[in-house]
């Protein structure tokens, strides 16, 4: 096997030459078990440590029934509620003895369970994880208690106006699709969770199945040995049959607005969002929207320089292109220093959008964005845990590290006209939603 660190060096030397190397520089194995479970193993030269990320392609997007928003996230909690073999106490104590770092997170399209530990504990980790994915067992009282911890999470998030903005933006911009609610879910559904034990069992039965799941193992490991362990512990897991019918969002036919009155002092915030397409690396659109977000709204953009650095009317501006399984939102967020400048800042954002629709950017500027994107990846992949974390996002989309390579190949071939085209096609008034938030009279 080629030493991986050399591969990364090789990437660095060639990345910006005539024939760019793949942006994901590691050799890896990708195999499917007969039950549909996918295993991706990435051996690295980072000694002793192993990162195990288990990606379930289920997020708040999969919450298709009214009244049950937030269940994917609730499950992230319930998965720590034990099995017959491993009570929550035994599970925690076993991880504790390993000195492992373990947690989980949920978003629109995925739930990921991750554990980072010393290599000698890999067999135990895979056995314990297999046990809870196949044999999770919790009684109604424990379910009710855990649903309160979710409410506690909502409560701690609720101190930030950005959480509220996110809720209102999604609720306003979407009519049918499940992206209408945030991953936390609607508060009324969270408050009703304790009454939904039976539904929770159904949710687990539907989605915690091998065909939805990919195990990523990165670190001081050998692929063959990992496969043997996965066969042993995960081989008996039964494939499911449920396929959700995710409602298709109808085309938006006009601009929308909403406003949030925040009860305590804050700086005013404006979010301008546009309906944008699903992640797609078969065309250049996702890559072009990413580049657009950076060119038009990052810290080196003309708009940022004008509003944040020169005029100092805003203290932050950022753009974010979606990379979701289904069409979502391209969002521009600005925090404004004075409430009377809110309209001014919003107008400058709209002007910037218009300018990018009309005139292609300089090729040289696009080149700097391309360069930055590749260095960003190289700089972040400095340990096994982060490598697994980055992969988990791409795996949630298309179940393979090649997703990442495909996207970066698209960045490499982008032209200024590609960027102009996506701005003209997607950042349009009829697909636009603007949400503003102000405190009582702005920040005092």
């Amino acid at each position, binding site marked *: 096997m080629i030493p991986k660190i050399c591969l990364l060096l090789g990437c660095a030397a060639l990345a910006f030459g005539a024939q760019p190397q793949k942006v994901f520089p590691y050799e890896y194995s990708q195999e499917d078990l007969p039950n549909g479970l996918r295993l991706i193993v990435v051996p690295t030269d980072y000694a002793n440590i192993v990162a195990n990320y288990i990606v379930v392609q289920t997020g708040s997007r999969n919450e298709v029934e009214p009244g049950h928003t937030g269940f994917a996230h609730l499950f992230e909690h319930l998965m720590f509620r034990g099995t017959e073999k491993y009570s929550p106490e035994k599970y925690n104590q076993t991880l504790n003895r390993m*000195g492992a770092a373990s947690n989980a997170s949920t978003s629109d399209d995925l739930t990921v369970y991750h554990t980072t530990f010393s290599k000698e504990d890999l067999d135990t980790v895979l056995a314990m994880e297999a046990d809870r994915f196949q044999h999770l067992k919790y009684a109604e009282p424990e379910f009710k208690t855990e649903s309160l911890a979710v409410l506690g999470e909502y*409560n701690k998030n609720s101190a930030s106006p950005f959480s509220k903005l996110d809720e209102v933006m999604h609720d306003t911009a979407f009519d049918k699709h499940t992206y209408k609610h945030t991953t936390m879910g609607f508060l009324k559904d969270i408050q009703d969770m304790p009454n939904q034990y039976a539904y929770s069992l159904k949710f687990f039965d539907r989605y915690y199945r091998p065909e939805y799941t990919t195990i990523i193992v990165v670190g001081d490991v050998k692929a063959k040995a990992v496969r043997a362990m996965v066969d042993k512990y995960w081989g008996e897991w039964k494939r499911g049959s449920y396929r959700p019918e995710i409602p298709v969002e109808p085309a938006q036919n006009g601009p929308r607005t909403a406003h949030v009155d925040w009860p*305590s002092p804050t700086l005013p915030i404006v979010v301008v969002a546009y309906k944008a397409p699903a992640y797609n690396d078969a065309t250049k659109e996702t890559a072009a929207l990413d580049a657009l977000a950076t060119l038009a709204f990052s810290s080196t953009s003309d708009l940022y320089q004008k509003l944040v*650095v020169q005029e100092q009317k805003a203290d932050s501006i950022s753009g974010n292109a979606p990379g979701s399984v289904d069409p979502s939102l391209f969002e521009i967020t600005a925090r404004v220093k004075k409430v009377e400048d809110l309209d001014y800042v919003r107008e400058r954002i709209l002007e910037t959008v218009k300018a990018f629709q009309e005139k292609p950017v300089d090729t040289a500027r696009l080149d700097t964005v391309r360069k930055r994107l590749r260095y960003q990846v190289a700089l972040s992949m400095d340990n096994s845990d982060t490598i697994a974390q980055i992969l988990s996002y791409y795996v949630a989309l298309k179940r393979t590290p090649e997703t990442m390579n495909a996207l970066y190949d698209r960045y490499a071939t982008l032209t200024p006209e590609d960027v102009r085209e996506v701005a003209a096609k997607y950042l349009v008034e009829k697909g636009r939603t603007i949400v503003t938030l102000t405190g009582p009279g702005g920040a005092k």
Partner: protein
Amino acid sequence: MRLIGSLFILVSCAAAQIRTVTLPGKSPLVTFRLVFTTGSAADPADRPGLAYLTAQMIADGGTKDLTYKQVTDAMFPMASGMNAQVDKEMTTFGGATHVDNLAEYYKLLKGRLLTPGWREDDFRRVKDAAINAIKVGLRGNNDEELGKEVLYETLYQGTPYGHFNGGTVSSLEKITLDDVKTFYKSQYSQSQLIIGIAGGYSPEFLASMKKDFGALPAAASPEAAIPAPAVVEKSRIVIVDKDTRSVAYSIGYPIDVTRARPDYAALLLVSSYLGQHRMSSGVLYNRLREKRGLNYGDYAYIEYFPRGMFLMEPQPNLARHRQIFQVWIRPVEPPTAKFALRLALFELDKLNKNGLTQEEFERTREFLSKYVNVLTRTKRAELGYAIDSLFYGIPQYNDYLKTQLAKLTLADVNRVIKENIRTDHVVIAAVTRNGEDLKRQLASDDASPMTYNSPKPKEITEEDTLVVKWPLGVKAEDIKVRPVAEVFQ
């Protein structure tokens, strides 16, 4: 030059007074951590926030030769940046770059640190950001961090640690650019600098870097000793009143333990057992969240740990000569607020009375002995911990901790519990709506009955009969309600 444990970590006092911590390697990345052993404890009494503004002007401003825009434009294609972290006794500048860009990146880093631009427009922007970080970031948007910082401010009143690292609004408003320049000249010296560097740099690069930083003044004014904070004579509560959904608590008191002290490993083990940060293994997490569903999590600390709601692991380079023991109770629903506080103190009392069992001791020791490898898995962390070890005068952290843990006995740990874990003489910070109402509740000895949405095991209901009447021991005159707008004003 002396070897301090790891084959590759070299600590040296070179020809000049600059200390270096180096981790040379074959990585295509180069990681920098430049630490000045100065910080907000050096703020003049009438200028809290000066150390913070100075560091921000360096890390988020232009250089003598380049404007802010020129610096950010130059760093942009490298995907590199520079960040500053200001604590009481350490100011850290961090950054990383690919070896392809090392020369160009270093030029920018050097320019910012050695020849800052000190432009008025940068100062205006940085100052606004610092003020908004208090008004909006802390007071407005983050009840939990707010509670923690109020706890620190209360405990350290009258000492150089007695103000928030980011200063106060009124002080930031009056600090001038000249104040910043003066602070820089007096505090950013060779004697206070530790250069940390890791990755694929050459020995020649390091030599020239040390030569460059020899341009700093040789020595700063001697560092003042940090006095111990006043003893907490009796328990008291500070309630910050603001419009918010729930009630966030932080509980704490000063301890005489730092990494340099003999009881460090034992007390670290105790805090890990009680509430390892963001893990479900701790006692507090288990009793408050898992068994009773009171909130999202509950943890314990023996070292300063800011931004815990955004971080899974502690940041290095927050080394201090003085620390506190702290319990963090994440927001609870207002009707359960008094019960939750009682339960947290009940658990501390239980720990004090019962100590750990042999199994609990061994399991937690095993955890820490291995988890330390996870904590230091990145070059950034490895460098940071090595710099902290230099500050505390201890060997390489991983080896040090493992050795100290291996020597521990259950008797040691239980002695340290008796000496350090208590429920009286504590300060409690709470952030809530209707502060006066919470004050009335907490000042009263009335029971705080607890009802659940599901049946609880006998063990819990029996325990609750004790918890609901657990004496908080705080009188109304020792509970202060502060409107949020006053905090850090």
